[in-house]
């Protein structure tokens, strides 16, 4: 499995990362201007209200762009070639992530993908994607 280094967590992002350990992916919606937020914030970055609420997002999307990193560093030093990508979520935001369990030569922009969670062992799980099963 691709290494899963623990992310930096702060008071704003604690709820988000706790949910990942339960297999849930939380997004926020601004109740003022009805947009979906990415990444977790106290204030909407468009209207700056604190009136934002969380919801369980769809765990699917399509590849917006990707690259095959030939050799990583640090935790990824011995990972072999791996994929960094932006996935456009079904709920809208384009988020940086990894694509795993895939044929590197078959990857393409627009490919449907589904979310998987990789436990970091430190109270969080990384949200990654694999080619959609159907």
């Amino acid at each position, binding site marked *: 499995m691709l290494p899963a280094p623990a992310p930096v967590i702060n008071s704003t992002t604690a709820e988000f990362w706790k949910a990942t350990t339960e297999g849930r992916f939380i997004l926020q919606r601004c109740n003022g201007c009805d947009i979906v937020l990415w*990444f977790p914030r106290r204030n909407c970055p468009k209207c700056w209200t604190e009136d934002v609420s969380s919801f369980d997002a769809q765990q699917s999307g399509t590849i917006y762009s990707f690259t095959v990193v030939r050799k990583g560093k640090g935790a990824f030093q011995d990972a072999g070639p791996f994929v*960094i990508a932006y996935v456009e*979520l079904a709920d809208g935001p384009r988020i940086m992530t990894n694509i795993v369990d895939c044929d590197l030569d078959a990857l393409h922009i627009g490919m449907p993908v589904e979310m998987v969670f990789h436990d970091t062992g430190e109270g969080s799980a990384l949200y990654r994607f694999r080619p959609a099963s159907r």
Partner: protein
Amino acid sequence: MTIRGAAYVAGIYEHPRREIPDRTLFEIHTEVALGALADAGLAMSDIDAVFCDGTAGFGPMSLVEHFGLSPSYFDSTETGGSSYLAHVGHAAAAIAAGKCSVALITLAGKPRTGRSVVAYAQSPEAGFESGWGVSGAPHTYALAAQRHMYEFGTTSAQLAEIKVAASIHAQYNPNAFLPYAVTVEDVLNSPLVADPLHRLDCCVVTDGGGALIVVSPEVARSLNRTSAKILGHGEAIKHTDNGGIDLTYTGAVWSGPRAFAEAGVSVADIKYASIYDSFTITVLQTIEDLGFCEKGQGGKFVMDGGLVAPFGKLPFNTDGGGLCNNHPSNRGGITKVIEAVRQMRGEAHPSVQVPNCQVSLAHGTGGSLGSKHGSVTLILGQEDA
């Protein structure tokens, strides 16, 4: 008020070395500062403003203490490799406002023989960008290249043409890290770092530094050395925009028009351009965004020697650029201004000097096209422009 004609670049200095194990970071700052002052015909005691990035100790305080100066104005704007172009614009504005008259801008770094400074881990986005194995700039720039190829049909061979043009120029620069010409095949046959970027799509990693002296019109007139007139400046930050990132364009779409409007010139007036070249894709997207060609047509624009000096459509990076010459401290902004000033003075290498070079452009891109970056555009004219 605009800065058009309110300030001049009077002194430049590029550190000649590409590995500097025997000097500290701050010693390199001193070396390049003295070099640029000597070029301008000024002394350390003339400086009344100091500009630096965010890697020089505790901001301008450490640097000013080290220099032994008491400036009336300082600025440590940190936008990665584009910082130094922002410093030029900010220095010109401060001079226009009467805050100072001789501004020193320095860059120093030792990524080959020391440590690079990164203070990114505490930023709010860090947890959402850092867990995916991103361990170098190529990884996120590659995302921009891949998407540009998908939307516009740009090819790896077209990106390679940008490296080839820079390498043709680098062979005239004895200080260049890679002082020889390469071919499209050389680029395509170099190892993939992060698809679609090959090793030769990437800039060099060098120790070194550079400095600029920006002065008031009165000071410029008093000097024997030819200055470059600052005609316009524009800056912008492009970021991920709440999950709405579009990887096919850069902040140059905003910084460029701001600089052109202030300078009162158009792309047709630009005879030479220093275009930030951390990667070949950085150049391709930037020339589109500055308006040298239509969006998506950058690949065609760079073919057939379009960027090769002195007679290409847009002679660029005649020192060999970051791709071949120098990218001190993993930041190429200061050398972009330095080579543009050489062109305005007619002091580029004769083989790559653009004839009748009256107006030039220098553009910096700091950070990543794949997430967030600072874009800064400067337009320079000859001293009597």
